[in-house]
């Protein structure tokens, strides 16, 4: 019995990590684009465009108001269109990426907003273009806050992979439901929960470590 638990756990963890890595990657890319768009199109910023700002903002709010489990169902046709199936971890990556991106957009926005406007003005006064300001000022200056925010997001995506597991995505969430819940295998349930806790802990530590080492270099903090 011990053996099959470990085997199932390993399989579940692998699938969870697979979903986590890819959907985090896509969600972070989309989220960065959304967050940057929100900040730079805001009133008084480098590419002020109030209409775009409003549209992006509404879109984000719209998707964020849909409960994730419903969003997955809504996005099933998209998953089928992109990768040809609605089952398994790969299909879930589509829903996870799209579902998490708006949340990421918002936290990227708030991290970037911490950069003092004066720094952006200084860059402008030296003749920097909007793109140069985004990539050489805005993102580098916000980096410690960005890393902290992205850590929160990756942990949120970990939770979402478990939710996705409930409707056929595989991974640790699916394991907990199929064995722990439906077959009363408390040992599997327990092992799954411990694994998820360790995983989340590991992500948090990594994020903290990166963020702290950037800050320590910049501010000589202890």
């Amino acid at each position: 019995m011990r053996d099959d638990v470990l085997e199932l756990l390993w399989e579940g963890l692998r699938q969870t990590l697979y979903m986590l890595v890819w959907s985090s990657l896509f969600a972070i890319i989309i989220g960065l684009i959304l967050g940057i768009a929100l900040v730079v199109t805001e009133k008084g910023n480098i590419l002020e465009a109030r209409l775009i700002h409003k549209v992006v903002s509404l879109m984000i709010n719209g998707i964020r108001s849909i409960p994730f489990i419903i969003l997955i169902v809504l996005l099933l046709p998209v998953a089928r269109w992109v990768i040809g199936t609605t089952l398994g971890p790969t299909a879930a990556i589509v829903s996870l990426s799209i579902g998490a991106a708006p949340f990421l957009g918002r936290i990227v926005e708030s991290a970037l907003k911490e950069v003092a406007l004066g720094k952006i003005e200084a860059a402008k006064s030296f003749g920097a273009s909007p793109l140069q300001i985004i990539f050489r000022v805005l993102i580098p200056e916000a980096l410690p806050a960005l890393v902290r925010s992205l850590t929160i997001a990756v942990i949120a995506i970990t939770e979402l992979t478990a939710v996705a597991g409930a409707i056929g995505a595989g991974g640790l969430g699916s394991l907990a439901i199929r064995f722990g819940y439906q077959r009363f295998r408390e040992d599997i349930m327990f092992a799954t929960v411990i694994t998820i806790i360790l995983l989340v802990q590991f992500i948090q530590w990594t994020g903290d470590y990166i963020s702290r080492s950037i800050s320590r270099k910049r501010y000589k903090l202890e």
Partner: protein
Amino acid sequence: MIVIHDLSKTYKTANDTFKALNGLSLTIERGDIFGIIGFSGAGKSTLVRCMNRLEEPDKGSVRIGNTVITDLNERQLRKARQKIGMIFQSFNLFDGKTVFHNVAFPLRVSGYDKATIRRRVKEVLEMVQLSDKENAYPSQLSGGQKQRVGIARALVNEPDVLLCDEATSSLDPQTTYSILELLQEINRKLNLTIVLITHELDVLQHICKNVAVIEQGKIVENGTVDQFFLAPESDTARRFVHIVERYRQKRNVLEGAGAGI
């Protein structure tokens, strides 16, 4: 030479409008250290920010050398800004970059090669006496050192004009003097035109050659610094100089009483 003609800028809030600049005209000679003084809200900061269009004026023109700044499109403006250095009250250094990379920033965005950047950055850091701080981050510097980095960063592209927006207002008197002396030295060495926004008489008296007094978005007095102190004409100028005058009287009284100051 800087020629500002009929410059206006109005700020609109939900239920109020504020005329920061109201048809302001001003000429600043090449190589001058020109002070613009006024009380808070007089429009002095808006004026200097309109000179490189960090603030877009509603009306009027700004010409620097042969370039009419107010006629440029975005791309031309960016090019022109490379020749207009600016320093700020809050320094606005990039916390995530070392002193070297802060100073290198204007050159990098202008697309210079690495060797040129190295050479120029080293030169200006030497000029502001911060060669030993090349690898420090801004958080490790004192206020005066930060402003020196600001000055180095503003000068690295060899501008014709240096705009100073309350550049010494957050520094203590001693540091202020050392920054002012540095600016004076740079003015002499590079024949750079310096425009200085301030509300501190000390700054005027210490380095400026000419001064304009701004009041409600207009220049109300314009002349040499001596004229400003000896024969102030405008209300604002009198109120500024009055403070100095009162202290001189007080001193006379105390000396008369044998207080021995």
